[in-house]
């Protein structure tokens, strides 16, 4: 007999339920609103009163309405067909909802139950297997989608039967396993997993050792993110958070991309729907949408489902990671998720922490970030979940609880700066304040040495120093005046501007400049550092400015030209000639 209850209090989407039996924290329930079932989750229990957050609008809900508890936590369905789907925060398929408007209590199936998948067995009868071991495989898009022993299976099993190669639906039994106690269990292509628990069916989680290419120069060269790494992008509104994230989604070197639009603008998600089916993945030549799952809980959708959406997205990534794939999770924005927590905490009249956020915000955030990472699977293969979240700090002030808590959890920090955005220096990533902890990892340094050249990290640090020195010089010039400083100050300042305009800035809307492969990044950086290493001779600071402006213009034209093209090298020659003319 499942536990039942009656509604005894309502404040917006927080409902208090008087229960007649046992309930668990995070257990789900349905509230019956005149025949429409509203899904809700237990977030607090006090005596016979359970506080539940409702994933829908509670308009019209009455005292005494009946509630039925489900005896399970919020879980999602995992199986072939997740890719190129568009879900809400609770994994309802938005594409199969007919109406223009979202209807309360309409829950749609995340997977296509009729579609036939070409199954190839991997395991053989007699094999000993445990959770997340591969039993077989289907092809999803162009990716090998492994059918695994469900994550929830505990202990060791022996494979009894595996279905022969052929076409099956996701609900057909493709394998039977014998448990240690002799019980025989059936396995289909789908399984369920509670989103708030991390999937831990892997052998170990080593430190990341390789960078993930994004095609964005200020990331890949200056502050690289590791495969299986974590990073975050804080910035005031209008600084290009979303444009930067979309660029990473389009170009990131990953097999699977999950984008969680968490409490953000619906039109931004529409942009993804519209563009991704057309865009080509630069690494495989396939349509971008084929490797992408979108979790869409926009700002006007119910706030409790917003909180669930990031967990749903992470669980899908962990599922694909267990197949030995490289996944990239982009969440925009984790501040909205934190605000959802704040709204609930507020309605429960809990004592608030800083800025009225719940006191355990920091631990919730670090717990979530820790679910990313590279893992070694039971069969020795590797998989990775790289996570980049955006943060929308109130008033653009980075000294606020969400930014500070995230800074403790994430290893890369891409600080977007209002000042740079005002000057249209995009991406507006502050070159001085931003950092990647991965540059300090010996494993990563070794891998960069192998990819680029020995001593690459030192070269990058050198380039950063040039930019930093340029900033200091600019301050001096501003204080003392153009005439009040030696020529070398002007030269140092303009060298940093050359790196800024020629390398750090990148036009996300230009077909060529938007994607800069690593090889091209190296060539451009080498070229610019070579120029910066030279000592110049100018008659006055006016001339210095004019010559460097010309150089910047040439380098920008290079960035707009096809790599290795004749045009590209013509500009390069033009630059060399200009440099020669003024070099000491």
């Amino acid at each position, binding site marked *: 007999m499942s536990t039942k209850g009656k509604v005894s209090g309502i404040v917006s989407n927080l409902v208090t339920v008087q229960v007649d039996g046992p309930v668990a924290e995070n257990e789900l329930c349905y509230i019956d609103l005149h025949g429409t079932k509203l899904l809700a989750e237990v977030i607090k229990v006090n005596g016979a009163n359970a506080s539940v957050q409702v994933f829908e609008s509670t308009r019209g809900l009455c005292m005494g309405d009946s509630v039925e508890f489900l005896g399970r936590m919020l879980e999602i369905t995992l199986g072939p067909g997740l890719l190129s789907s568009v879900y809400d925060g609770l994994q309802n398929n938005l594409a199969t909802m007919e109406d223009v408007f979202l209807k309360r209590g309409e829950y749609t199936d995340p997977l296509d139950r009729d579609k036939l998948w070409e199954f190839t067995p991997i395991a053989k009868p007699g094999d000993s297997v445990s959770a997340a071991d591969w039993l077989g495989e289907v092809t999803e898009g162009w990716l090998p989608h492994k059918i695994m022993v469900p994550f929830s299976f505990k202990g060791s099993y022996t494979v009894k039967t595996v279905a022969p190669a052929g076409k099956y639906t996701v609900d057909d039994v493709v394998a039977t396993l014998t448990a240690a106690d002799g019980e025989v269990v059936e396995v289909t292509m789908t399984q369920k997993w509670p989103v708030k628990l991390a999937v831990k069916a892997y052998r170990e989680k080593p430190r990341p050792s390789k960078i993930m290419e994004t095609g964005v120069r200020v990331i890949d060269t200056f502050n690289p993110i590791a495969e299986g790494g974590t990073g975050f992008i804080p910035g005031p509104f209008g600084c290009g958070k979303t444009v930067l994230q979309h660029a990473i989604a389009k170009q990131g070197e990953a097999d699977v991309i999950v984008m969680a639009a968490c409490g953000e603008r619906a039109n931004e998600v529409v942009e993804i729907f519209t563009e991704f089916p057309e865009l080509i993945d630069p690494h495989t030549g396939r349509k971008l949408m084929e490797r992408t799952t979108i979790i869409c809980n926009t700002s006007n959708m119910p706030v409790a489902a917003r909180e669930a959406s990031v967990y749903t997205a992470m669980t899908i990534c962990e599922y694909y990671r267990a197949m030995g794939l490289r996944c990239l999770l982009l969440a925009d924005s984790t501040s909205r998720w934190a605000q959802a927590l704040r709204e609930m905490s507020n309605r429960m009249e809990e004592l608030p922490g800083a800025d009225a956020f719940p006191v355990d915000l920091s631990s919730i955030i670090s717990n979530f970030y820790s679910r990313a990472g590279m893992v070694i699977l039971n069969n020795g293969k590797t998989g990775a979940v790289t996570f980049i979240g955006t943060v929308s700090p109130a*008033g653009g002030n980075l000294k606020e609880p969400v930014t500070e808590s995230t800074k403790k959890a994430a290893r890369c920090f891409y600080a977007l700066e209002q000042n740079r955005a005002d000057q249209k220096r995009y991406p507006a990533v502050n070159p001085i304040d931003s950092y990647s902890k991965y540059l300090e990892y010996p494993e990563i340094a070794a891998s960069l040495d192998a990819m680029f050249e020995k001593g690459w990290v030192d070269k990058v640090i050198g380039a950063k120093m040039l930019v930093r020195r340029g900033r200091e010089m600019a301050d001096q010039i501003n204080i003392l005046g153009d005439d009040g400083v030696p020529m070398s100050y002007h030269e140092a300042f303009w060298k940093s501007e050359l790196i800024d305009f020629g390398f750090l800035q990148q036009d996300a809307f230009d077909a060529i400049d938007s994607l800069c492969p690593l090889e091209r990044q190296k060539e451009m950086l080498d070229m610019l550092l070579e120029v910066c290493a030279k000592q110049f001779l100018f008659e006055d600071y006016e001339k210095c400015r004019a010559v460097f402006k010309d150089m910047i213009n040439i380098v920008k034209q290079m960035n707009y030209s096809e790599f290795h093209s004749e045009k590209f090298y013509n500009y390069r020659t033009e630059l060399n000639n200009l440099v020669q003319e003024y070099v000491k």
Partner: protein
Amino acid sequence: MSSKVYQKIYTHLHAITKATVSLKATGVANDELALVHGHLAQVVKVKGELVTLQVFAGTEGIPTDAEVVFLGAPPTLKVSEQLSGRFFNAYGHPIDGGPEVEGEERQVGGPSVNPYRRRQPSELIPTGIAGIDLNNTLVSGQKIPFFADPDQPYNQVMADVAMRADVDKIILGGMGLSNDDYLFFRNEFESAGALDKIVCFINTTEDPPVERLLVPDMTLAAAEYFAVDRNEKVLVLLTDMTLYADALSIVSNRMDQIPSKDSMPGSLYSDLAKIYEKAVQLPSGGSITIIAVTTLNDGDITHAIPDNTGYITEGQLFLRADSDSGKVIVDPFRSLSRLKQLVQGKKTREDHSQVMNAGVRLYADAQNAKTKLENGFDLSDYDHRCLDYAKEYATRLLSIDVNIKIDEMLNTAWELFSKYFSPAETGIKQTLIDKYWVR
């Protein structure tokens, strides 16, 4: 307002604050309307038998033995073609002396559009103002506020934009509008002969502040009727959203909720998003575009209201008095239209985005030169050219009294670049320089 057949009348109020009343009642639904002492009120909290209602008109004069009748439904609006050309108060009752509207009664503040059913906005809304069309192009289905200090002519600019925009309906939601501004809008609409495509929901400063909470929902319910049912292009004007947010904080304060930043309710972001996200491009061709006003305290955009708004809307238009040109300009640094790239170079000339960026970058250089000048340093030749450029740029393009076509704006920009700078100094793509540079 109709009521249930077997309605029960309550006559004992348990508690009264300036904005809310509480009483013991049973069978009450969340969000339901009620009449308290003849004033309209709405259920905002139910705890056991204790029901809390926000009273829109305020609780002045309400006694503890006031009659309370629950009406069994959330706020509604009757929608039909008859809405056109009419002026209503926050409850949707006519204030223009005309008859009540007949039509289908719909709940306001209804569900959101399935994001998957939306279409990407792609139609340009020209306004003739270069600070908008050139630098911050508007697109149908967009939501964008004016950030302005109270002394700036934001209502005039908004009226100009509305009258020039090529739309089927203009729906004005006025919150805390001064009576003078209300009459100004009325006059503008009448003198343009555009009354038949206008619908207004007006709450003036003379009306109680909590009533304002109904205005956006009423306005958008009417907008959804025209956009969804009649496939029309609808432009919604909301002024002033700061006063709306203030009303939200009054109610949450009276309900003893813990305030977050700037004493605003913790749910401010969700509350504002519910309104702004009604902006939509529908697959059937109808659209809702929202232009709002958020007034600032002395230009402070870090205050919770503009800050949350900025994270929700697709950009913002920032008005500022410019001392160089002596005009009110659309600030090119703080203003932004996030959807501009959907039309720039696609619905407008190919050079649009590069011209825009170069124009703003050079204007930024002029600001640096100005700082140098203020600090008493000598200016270089480039600095002087930048300053001269900035003055002309502000006068001929940024000023809000400009009214020209987009091609003309681009040509003006090229003219200014060529007059003050070398091609390299603009940093524009060579192919465009070859084509458009004025030699």
